[in-house]
């Protein structure tokens, strides 16, 4: 079963534009994490937001969390061609201890 569901499945934008990806989840969480994966490689952690936080920034990344709607969004501002990758949200499931569950991901393509 997948906890996180990313939306959209794929996104294509021009360099310099902003990219927004959404993640919805089903059960209660104590944190939500976003990861990036370049083609054929392992995932790289981008940002972690705790359940008692509403917004977090890291460089050009902005993550919001709405626990009442069980959703999160990742905004990448002023996108670059190097941002082309797949983006995943992940949640540790509270009732399953340390189980870390990922969604299907959003494929982002930034055209130069």
């Amino acid at each position: 079963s997948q906890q996180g569901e990313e939306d959209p499945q794929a996104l294509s934008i021009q360099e310099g534009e902003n990219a927004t990806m959404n993640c919805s989840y089903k059960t209660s969480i104590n944190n939500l994490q976003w990861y990036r994966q370049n083609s054929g490689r392992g995932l790289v952690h981008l940002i972690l937001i705790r359940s008692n936080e509403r917004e977090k920034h890291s460089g050009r990344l902005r993550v919001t969390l709405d626990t009442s709607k069980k959703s999160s969004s990742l905004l990448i501002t002023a996108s670059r061609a190097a941002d082309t990758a797949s983006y995943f949200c992940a949640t540790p499931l509270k009732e399953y201890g340390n189980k870390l569950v990922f969604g299907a991901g959003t494929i982002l393509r930034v055209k130069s």
Partner: protein
Amino acid sequence: DVKVTQSSRYLVKRTGEKVFLECVQDMDHENMFWYRQDPGLGLRLIYFSYDVKMKEKGDIPEGYSVSREKKERFSLILESASTNQTSMYLCASSLFSITLMNTEAFFGQGTRLTVV
């Protein structure tokens, strides 16, 4: 720098073979995970471990087993490889936190396994 190292980048095995995928982390992390990744399906959790000799089934454990004899090493075993186990396999580790349960996970580079 945290390092999670998977023993092979590419692997080709025959149907019916017993296959071992090895993963080693160097940061004394309690949690270790094995995922498989297939197009359109994202990462699916096969098994995870939160301590030496402890293991928990993930969402798709059938046809797989794991071993964690030492804290730094987590092995995935395909008992009898089949063509539907052709996939990208990703290992990850993370530090346990009582408040966060899982902190950020660090991933290996992946093993692309082909079963012929």
